[in-house]
């Protein structure tokens, strides 16, 4: 049983800017939580504070009830996998994995057994004698993962571990890491700026912006029901349209959508797959470009004032550039003052 408890953590750098701003999070035993956000959102700083590489300006971090806020990294029950893998190039794979065990004064025979077992776990059985520089990028990252796992940390920390790998390898390692994580039941905090990674791996996603939490939810909920316009725009593809609500109708250019909220400014959010388009004699928009992806198509539309919208269609061959079309949103959400005010 290993739970991570982050309470009101703030990190202010010397320049005075807050990298992390009173951030709180509970991670349950065996859970994989993704910190997702653009660069500069404070997600890496937060992870480094959990690992002990940065000191919080205020707030506390607790692991299994033990306050670790002021412990140095070597005395924390955390294991970190770095983006650059950070393997020790002057040691071979075996020595990289054995280093931490040796520090714990484990007998040599036991170290050998443990290293072999963990190499087997990450699919690198028999690679102990290789120098780390002789390995491919994917293998290096597996060794880095094994180096953390062999010490059986209570919390596994992953700092964009796949960022330097190519797309294909990234997808495969993503599945492998998720499998291993679930098999070991290890509590994991994962930092990424790739939403695919977060959506496919995480039990829960924390969307961060400017050092603050925007939303904490299951991946499907974050996608279907973004609570702030930032999350709406950051996760997946989204049409975000600023406009005015008057008498129960949202208006922008020729687009009018029924919206039962008090009058005032609002931001309308519509997924491309929730925006239907049909050819029309009284068009509200014109087709700018049609892109055929084989399985589906995307139609770029312009409202009369130039606002660009995207619509996902099953039959892109029905549309052509310059055509006048009518648009019908099926599912919408609306935001005002950074808060969700409506969802259909």
């Amino acid at each position, binding site marked *: 049983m290993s739970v991570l408890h982050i309470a009101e953590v703030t990190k202010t750098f010397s320049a005075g800017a807050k990298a992390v701003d009173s951030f709180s999070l509970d991670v349950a035993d065996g859970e994989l939580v993704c910190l997702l956000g653009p660069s500069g959102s404070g997600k890496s700083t937060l992870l480094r504070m959990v690992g002990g590489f940065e000191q919080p300006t205020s707030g506390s971090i607790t692991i299994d009830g033990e306050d670790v806020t002021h412990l140095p990294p070597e005395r924390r029950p955390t294991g970190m996998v770095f983006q650059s893998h950070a393997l020790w190039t002057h040691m071979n794979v075996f020595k990289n994995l054995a*280093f*931490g065990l040796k520090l714990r004064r484990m007998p040599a025979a036991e170290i050998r057994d443990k290293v072999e077992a963990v190499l087997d776990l990450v699919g690198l059985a028999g690679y102990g004698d290789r120098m780390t520089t002789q390995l491919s990028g994917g293998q290096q990252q597996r060794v880095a993962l094994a180096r953390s796992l062999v010490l059986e940390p209570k919390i596994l920390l992953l700092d964009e571990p796949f960022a330097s790998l190519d797309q294909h390898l990234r997808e495969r390692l993503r599945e492998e890491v998720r499998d291993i994580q679930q098999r070991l039941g290890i509590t994991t905090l994962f930092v990424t700026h790739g939403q695919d990674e977060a959506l496919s791996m995480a039990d829960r996603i924390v969307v961060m912006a400017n050092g603050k939490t925007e939303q904490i939810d299951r991946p499907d909920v974050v996608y279907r029901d973004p609570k702030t316009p930032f999350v709406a725009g950051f996760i997946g593809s989204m049409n975000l349209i600023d406009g005015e609500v008057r008498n129960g109708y949202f208006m922008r250019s020729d687009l009018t959508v029924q919206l039962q909220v008090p009058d005032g400014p609002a931001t309308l959010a519509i997924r491309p797959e929730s925006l239907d388009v049909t050819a029309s004699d009284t068009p509200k928009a014109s087709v700018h470009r049609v892109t055929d992806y084989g399985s589906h198509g995307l139609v770029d539309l312009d409202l009369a004032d130039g606002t660009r919208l995207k619509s996902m269609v099953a039959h892109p061959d029905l549309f052509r550039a310059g055509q006048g079309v009518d648009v019908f949103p099926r599912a919408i959400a609306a935001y005002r003052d950074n808060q969700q005010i409506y969802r259909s």
Partner: protein
Amino acid sequence: MSTMTTARGRIDWLGIFFAGLLTIAIVGPLLVVGTWAFTEVWRYPNVIPQQFGFRFWAQTLGRADVWNALMLSLQLTTVVTLLSALICLPAAYAFARMNFPGRNILFFSFLAGHAFPKFGLLVAIAAIFLQLDLIGTFWGVVLIQLVGTLMFMIWIPVAAFQSVDRRMEEAARDVGAGPFRVFWSVTLPQAGPTIAAAVLLSFVGTFYETEGAWLIGAPGIRTMPVLMISFINNQMVIQFGAVLSVLLWVPSFIALMFARRVIGGGAFARGFGG
């Protein structure tokens, strides 16, 4: 593709000319010295000596002052290099990794010592040493030669420490190593080859250092280079100087070959390149 092959096939005459010129400039004097060392009679206008032989080797190696000077030089150089490493490596680490008031000024002060004409500086130091009774003593020469090694032993290791990946050190902290263990097991091995290059350079440099050793050490302390100068000044027997040159060239050549094998050419370049 075809243009590339022709470009590679064309002979770079200018390059060969400069390479040849450099070779003559470097190898030429070495050849002359090497020839003189094994010469017994060589008179104008002959291009090659009339008589080769080992007479001057026997004479040179038979002199007690040569052996004394060689031993003294080795002792001095070893002491200076060890002391220099002891002082400079922690300092280099501090310069590379820590931030403290006056860091930049201190760092550049190591360059300043080399910005002045060296002899003027030495005379001033000699005046101070005279008051401290350090003139003509072993430790006086150690001190003055220590100053000469500072630049190599600070600047190159600083570059070496700076190029060690911080994430590697953090990863070692992460698996349970304290700061000292991280330094010993990760930082030092990573920076090691470049630092070894710096130690070697300062060893060779100190071994051949002449002005300081002569000005501070005379008359009591006579190192190999100082002895060579006195040979040249007093006796004008070219062979003595030539024999000593060849003799001194051998250890440094072996050291450099050894270093090249252990360290690899890249480390020297890295050390200088920062």
